[in-house]
């Protein structure tokens, strides 16, 4: 690791590893560094459960996948991006099959598919209900055979190095030794995933702090559509552990305290004993989470120690189907909730799950900042618009991870070695970390308290339903938290594996991301997909058929501008579910 790599990948999850392999296959002479704050197989892709969508069946076609995605996204998707996505998803999924991914099979050995929310056809490939786990391990293990891929495991990136309008590397902390070091490169690809931990109740792992979003934002790359935060309708109370949509795709019912399948009261179709595509429990996630709030307002949810819940009922599927198709659901319920879904109802409530927004990129993962690329949840291409459909994010990280990898490889092949002037910038960053965090006089603010305040502010103001008043208050509060963060107290001044230092850096990233979310939400005076404003309940294509672009001003405040949505073949229409 003495000389510089050609390309630095920040993050070693699905998108990062797919990008690394794409670079290695495009140009084996390029040296790729996968810089990840956790060992790659710990990355959050591992937690994805239900499946990955790609057209495979005879009765299916690319246009239908595109239409489901675009209508599911409430017409905020860029349709050229969606076209590329649905076209390339099948070959990407097949490539993973060739690499050994244990996709679930039909009895004759062909790939099996299952229904999924908002999808009109069965096109969701799955590896039981540990799809993300198997995809990640397949990608990680396959990546080991490429000698040009080097890994910096447990290195925490704190800053992008920018010179002459071009990103030329990163500064990172080697967590084990505490050494702060620049890693120069001709191109940097951000693959750090989402930012669910900005909220108090989330399916997201502890490592999901919007690192890449904040790194890009601070370096001058805009964030796009940050107000669109997906609540998954079925998380376990207290832990927020995800109960996959596959539980409903296999036939599970959502019922209220009276045992009533309440989704029929929210324009989502009629209850049938068997699952009906794009209907009832297989409606899109935004609509289901919103129905939960309405149901709660009507007093028809069940009160628990951890707030209101409804019930997910899979008992009628029987033990055999549950064990074959959703074994992880049973395992999670038994281990973490002490209930057996074969015999008991599963308590569930909406939980923050996914970020539709992210670093603004084009369809090749290119950001407006030269030398900087992004792919996966950290990026906003946008194929997900105002609401992502379940099972689109896994193929997204393959398609756009590969595209970003190829684009960065082409770019890096034409670039000179970064200038040594970057070392001065890196020294500045090292001094900043030491002075502001490691060698500081005792501060007066407690790290965990600031984090909790941020999370509660977000839940109260930027949750499933929002209003201008509460968002404005949240913006003020976040500004205050940014100020108070300067006075944060760290008890740990040591270098070796200092997780208090990394937690502080993560909180600082999250505060920036939270501000971007709130400002974008405040400015969008309409309701679309996952962004519901009680003071502007209707969609307003006249004013807001546009992407929000949040940029950071010199003083740290947030500026929001708009970019038109690319509409090609599907003019904005009404979202119809339930037949």
């Amino acid at each position, binding site marked *: 690791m003495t000389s510089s790599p050609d390309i630095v990948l920040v993050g070693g999850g699905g998108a990062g590893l797919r990008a690394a392999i794409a670079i290695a296959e495009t140009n084996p002479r390029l040296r790729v560094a996968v810089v990840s704050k956790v060992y790659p*197989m710990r990355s959050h892709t591992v937690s994805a459960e239900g499946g990955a969508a790609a057209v495979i069946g005879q009765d299916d076609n690319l246009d239908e996948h595109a239409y489901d995605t675009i209508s599911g996204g409430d017409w905020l998707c860029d349709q050229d991006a969606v076209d590329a996505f649905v076209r390339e998803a099948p070959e990407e999924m097949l490539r993973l099959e060739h690499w050994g991914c244990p996709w679930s099979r039909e009895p004759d050995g062909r790939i099996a598919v299952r229904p999924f929310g908002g999808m009109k056809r069965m096109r969701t490939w799955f590896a039981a209900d540990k799809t993300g786990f198997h995809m990640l391990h397949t990608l990680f293990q396959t990546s080991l055979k490429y000698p040009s891929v080097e890994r910096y495991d447990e290195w925490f990136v704190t800053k992008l190095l920018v010179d002459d309008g071009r990103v030329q590397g990163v500064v990172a902390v080697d967590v084990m030794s505490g050494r702060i070091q620049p890693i120069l490169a001709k191109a940097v690809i951000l693959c750090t995933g989402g930012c669910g931990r900005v909220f108090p109740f989330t399916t997201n792992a502890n490592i999901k702090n919007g690192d890449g979003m904040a790194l890009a934002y601070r370096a001058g790359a805009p964030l796009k559509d940050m107000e669109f935060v997906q609540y998954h309708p079925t998380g376990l109370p207290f832990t927020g552990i995800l109960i996959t949509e596959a539980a409903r795709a296999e036939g599970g019912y959502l019922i209220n305290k009276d045992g009533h399948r309440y989704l029929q009261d929210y324009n989502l179709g009629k209850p049938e004993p068997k699952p009906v595509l794009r209907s009832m429990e297989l409606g899109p996630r935004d609509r289901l989470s919103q129905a939960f709030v309405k149901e709660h307002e009507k007093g028809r949810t069940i009160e628990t120690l951890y707030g209101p819940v409804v019930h997910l009922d899979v008992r009628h599927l029987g033990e055999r189907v549950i064990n074959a198709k959703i074994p992880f659901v049973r395992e999670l319920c038994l281990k973490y909730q002490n209930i057996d879904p074969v015999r008991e109802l599963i308590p569930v409530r909406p939980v923050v799950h996914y970020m539709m927004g992210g670093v603004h990129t084009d369809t090749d993962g290119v950001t407006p900042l030269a030398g900087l690329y992004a792919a996966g949840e950290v990026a906003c291409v946008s194929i997900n618009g105002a609401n992502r459909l379940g099972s689109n994010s896994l193929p997204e990280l393959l398609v756009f991870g590969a595209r970003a990898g190829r684009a960065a490889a082409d770019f890096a092949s034409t670039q000179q070695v970064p200038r040594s002037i970057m070392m001065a910038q890196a020294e500045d960053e090292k001094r900043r970390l030491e002075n502001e965090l490691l060698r500081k006089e005792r501060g007066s603010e407690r790290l965990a308290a600031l984090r909790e305040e941020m999370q509660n502010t977000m839940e109260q103001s930027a949750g499933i339903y929002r209003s201008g008043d509460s968002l404005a208050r949240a913006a003020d509060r976040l500004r205050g938290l940014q100020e108070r963060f300067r006075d944060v107290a*760290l008890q740990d001044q*040591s270098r*070796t*594996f200092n*997780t208090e230092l990394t937690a502080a850096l993560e909180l600082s990233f999250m505060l920036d991301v939270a501000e971007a979310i709130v400002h974008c939400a405040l400015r969008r005076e309409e309701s679309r997909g996952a962004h519901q404003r009680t003071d502007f309940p209707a969609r307003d294509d006249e004013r807001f058929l546009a992407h929000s672009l949040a940029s950071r001003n010199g003083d740290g405040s947030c500026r929001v501008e708009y970019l038109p949505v690319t509409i090609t073949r599907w003019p904005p229409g009404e979202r119809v579910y339930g037949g």
Partner: protein
Amino acid sequence: MADRIALQVLRYRPEQEAEPTVEQYEVPCRKDWVVLDGLNYVKDRLDGSLSYRWSCRMGICGSCGMMVNGEPKLTCATFLADYDPGPVRVEPLSNFPVIRDLVIEMGDFMRKLPAVKPWIVRKEEKPLPEGGYLQTPEQMDEYKQFSMCINCMLCYAACPVYGLDPTFLGPAAIALAQRYNLDSRDQGARERLEILSQHDGIWGCTFVGECTKVCPKDVDPAAAIQRYKLKAALEWLKPFFLWGSER
């Protein structure tokens, strides 16, 4: 059930102390709290300098393995109430060097992984346009169990052979080799066999089965190792049986 429980946590800060010490913390003992919740309570409210790894809190990322009262456990799936009235001893995984507090050095495993070629090996790659490989559910069942490993390192902490001989590839790496060997799409079994039989470790496994007992994902590495030994022994014997016919 008492409403609080004592955690006795092994502390080791190499910059400050030569030897590990034990520190005791009182944490709430709630019905649905796991050991990891207790550690997070300590870090967030009592002592910010405590270091440990964790991420998904749903038993799939493999980060939070530690010794709990002497047994290797995923702390996100180990309930405090099961140890009521306490105290609960929390230590870093056995058989590994300790970096700091509850954080172990697992570079050895990471270096061993590529040695077993944990990827599909083909004499000839099938071009993508020709579609996927067929694999029946029965064929998948052959290797499925060995594909469930989350690399949590509990089996290494439990393995008496690894404890004595760190050159031993270890349960998870051998199970992973077997995962690919048994995959109908793979043709790399012979290459892997050569690597595995080079290491004395595999023969050192005495089939104590501790690895299988502690595995949180029912991977059964002990079975993988035994099958491997049998296969390796047969391969070794093969030339003797085939002597006449091949000449």
